[in-house]
């Protein structure tokens, strides 16, 4: 096989991969039940949480330990086979979408909590451990793992590392990158590398930060040390109604200007509450054009002080109704609606497409007005849920994949939201990752020199470009194609792009 060299200019072609050589090599490493190659066995792996895109891999490997991961990567490296690492497959950007002629490396079998130490407030876990399982194991010690993506019941810590996952509490408690001390990983050539350690600082470049959010392009995670933090004694949530989304957006800024960092600060617009309420019966105000959920946590004294302060701000900001959870059951009910927003929208629409742009909070009203315009332009409905505290917006575009043209209109709608996110001073993805889905939108956010720099980072770890190719960072050729496509549709132009 000719040697491959990863390039920033063009996507690679893996059609010359020798299927039987790959299966032989993997078969020598793995027991028969840990290597899948039959079509019906591969089917469950054809997509991740973004089911609009599907591809069958050549094979799925399910290693049980790090030594097998090393052996698999070395074999794939030798044979020039692309490898896509996969956790629970809950990702929303197609990051775990298989590569045709490639191997899916599922870490699902590596799901042991190796050590949980309440004294040092750390847990050492394998990559396939579920996010919520860590918190459950830590609960008897009054501790928990802070990042809580809405998929936390299913998503794995390895996937959280790949995406730098957030959640509804990251304004106060940070993202994955703020809550992980150490990642042990394997590079494509089979080197086992420790990124970070059990202390707070490690010598050299901060490769731990670089690994987190690298979407499986730099190394495969085999072990993680997470920080555990004390569970706050109490938490209460305020639910405030607004008759105007602009006022609701301004209220968010007012809370922060008052020196308050709420544990959670979420917004839902009227279409979102309307979708959720019949499903969850959270008690949302269905007349409000927007509702805000603002949570305070800490000691009882602290929470009382903060809730009073937030209530005063919200009243001044023009809330039409304010309710404070009176007990834990009510607090969970208020949150249940927010956490169920995606499935609730799934109930009222055959399909939905979740976007993930982040914008400066102050531009929220502008964004929502623009989205309302796009609903008319594309003839599709959209409900909006919003991590208001940190500016991360999740518009849920509703469509029916069985209606010809609707998926394409949905994609164009989504791309327009992302383009506007960048224009408003934000980013195309706050927490779901670029994956396969937003690779075109990367060309909007970054200049060619920056994309080329990303490719050089990739090459520093994986010169042949075998780990999760054609994801996260577009080649310049692809950006040129993306630009042409959009010119063709009359949407946007990218005159600054070089053409290949």
């Amino acid at each position, binding site marked *: 096989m000719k040697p491959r060299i990863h390039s920033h200019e063009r996507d690679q072609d893996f059609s010359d991969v020798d299927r039987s050589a790959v299966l032989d090599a993997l078969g020598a490493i793995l027991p028969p039940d840990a290597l899948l190659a039959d079509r019906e066995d591969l089917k469950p792996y054809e997509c991740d949480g973004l089911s609009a895109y599907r591809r069958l891999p050549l094979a799925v490997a399910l290693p049980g330990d790090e030594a097998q991961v090393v052996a698999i990567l070395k074999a794939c490296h030798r044979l020039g086979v692309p490898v896509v690492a996969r956790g629970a497959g809950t990702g929303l950007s197609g990051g775990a979408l298989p590569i045709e002629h490639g191997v899916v490396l599922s870490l699902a079998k590596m799901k042991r909590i190796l050590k949980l130490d309440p004294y040092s407030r750390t847990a050492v876990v394998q990559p396939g451990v579920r996010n919520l399982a860590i918190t459950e194991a830590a609960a008897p010690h009054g501790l928990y793992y802070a990042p809580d993506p809405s998929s936390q019941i299913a998503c794995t810590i390895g996937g959280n590392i790949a995406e730098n996952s957030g959640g509804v509490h990251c304004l106060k408690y940070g993202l994955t990158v703020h809550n992980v001390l150490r990642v042990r990983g394997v590079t494509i050539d089979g080197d086992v590398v420790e990124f970070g350690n059990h202390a707070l600082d490690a010598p050299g470049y*901060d490769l731990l930060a670089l690994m987190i959010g690298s979407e499986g392009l730099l190394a495969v995670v085999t072990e993680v040390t997470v920080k555990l933090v004390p569970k706050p004694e109490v938490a209460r949530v305020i639910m405030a109604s607004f008759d105007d989304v602009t006022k609701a957006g301004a209220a968010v800024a007012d809370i922060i200007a008052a020196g308050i960092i709420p544990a959670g600060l979420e917004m839902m617009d009227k279409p979102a509450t309307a979708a959720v309420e019949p499903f969850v019966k959270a008690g949302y105000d269905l007349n409000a054009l927007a509702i805000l959920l603002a949570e305070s946590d800490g000691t009882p004294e602290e929470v009382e002080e903060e809730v009073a302060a937030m209530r005063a701000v919200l009243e001044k900001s023009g809330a039409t109704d304010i309710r404070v959870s009176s007990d834990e059951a009510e607090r969970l009910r208020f949150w249940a609606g927010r956490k169920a927003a995606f499935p609730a929208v799934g109930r009222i629409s055959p399909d939905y497409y979740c976007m993930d742009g982040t914008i400066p909070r102050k531009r929220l009203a502008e964004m929502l007005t623009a989205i309302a315009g796009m609903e008319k332009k594309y003839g599709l409905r959209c409900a909006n849920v919003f991590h208001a505290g940190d500016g991360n917006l999740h518009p849920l575009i509703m469509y029916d994949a069985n209606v010809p043209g609707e998926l394409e209109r949905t994609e164009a709608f989504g791309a327009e939201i992302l383009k506007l996110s960048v224009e408003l001073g934000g980013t195309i993805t706050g927490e779901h990752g670029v994956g396969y889905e937003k690779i075109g939108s990367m060309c909007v956010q970054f200049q060619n020199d920056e994309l080329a720099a990303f490719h050089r*980072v990739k090459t520093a770890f994986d010169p042949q470009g075998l780990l999760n190719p054609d994801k996260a960072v577009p080649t310049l050729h692809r950006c040129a194609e993306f630009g042409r496509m959009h010119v063709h549709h009359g949407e946007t132009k990218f005159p600054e792009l070089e053409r290949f």
Partner: protein
Amino acid sequence: MTDEFKARISAAGRTNAPLRIRGAGSKDWYGHALNGEILDTRSHAGIVAYEPTELFVTAKCGTPLAEIETVLAQKGQCLPFDAPRFSPTSTIGGVVAAGLSGPRRVSAGSLRDFVLGVDILDGEARALRFGGQVMKNVAGYDVSRLIAGSLGTLGLITEVTLKVLPVPVAEVTLRFELNQGDALDKLNRWAGQPLPIVASAWHDGVLTLRLGGARAAVEAAQLKLGGEKVGADATAFWRDCRDQALPFFAAERLWRLSVPSVAPPLALPGEQWIEWGGALRWLRSDSPAETIRAAAHQAGGSATLYRAPAALKAQVGAFAPLSAPLLKLHRNLKAAFDPKGIFNPGRLYPEF
């Protein structure tokens, strides 16, 4: 201004003459001896954007840290990682390049935790922007946080955006008489409880603890923890601790050991000063570097020869040696951003 920088970088690339990136020069002693012609960043200065309700500040590299802090303080905000100030003229570019955090780091997070975005010029004088001004941003690799603490070896930071937070409403400082073992044990037990402890410092049988947060929470914690309340000189104590201006730090040879907070007292000759709930242990010691590095490594961390004569640093290395796979990645990354090796060569490790 950046055009002038670009020209300098291009010229250096043509002649293979290394550049020594420098702000106020307040950390010239940090890392290895400096090579190359000085590229002074101070002319590229000024706050570009500060939006208190968006919780970020963007400043050009030469902006004095003191200027940024003054502007933030007017809105009741701060840079919570508490960077040490070795000079009133320290620049934000230098602060980010050094990546050092102060006593509050244990609760608030480190400098790199607060980096939202950077603009850099790479070794080929290309202007590159990574990250941005929003808190959640996973588009592309997190190069901004890679740049933090890289001591100018990957690029010239021209602009940086940092997350800011409100100043705590209330603060109280408490003192306890405790030996090292008991202090470490108490710190680790307290850290497992929801207490508003923001910083700690132990030295010579005395543990000083800083509480901060909502007034009610601080008062409740004070009752629970006991100890002796420190009055008016608490602010000065924490400032001098942050700036390493206390007499303890005036050592010709000072080691900085980053270890897990639960590591037992390290049996090393010399005096110690312990911060970050036990996770940062300063050591004044003439013991051989191998002994100190081995002790730090065995405890699960690493030891930096922080302040020492340049000759000694050259001999034993300022920073703990990297494993072979890590060193390979460091070299590759250096080549990715600075292929001709013109930025601060050898400042971090002699190999790149």
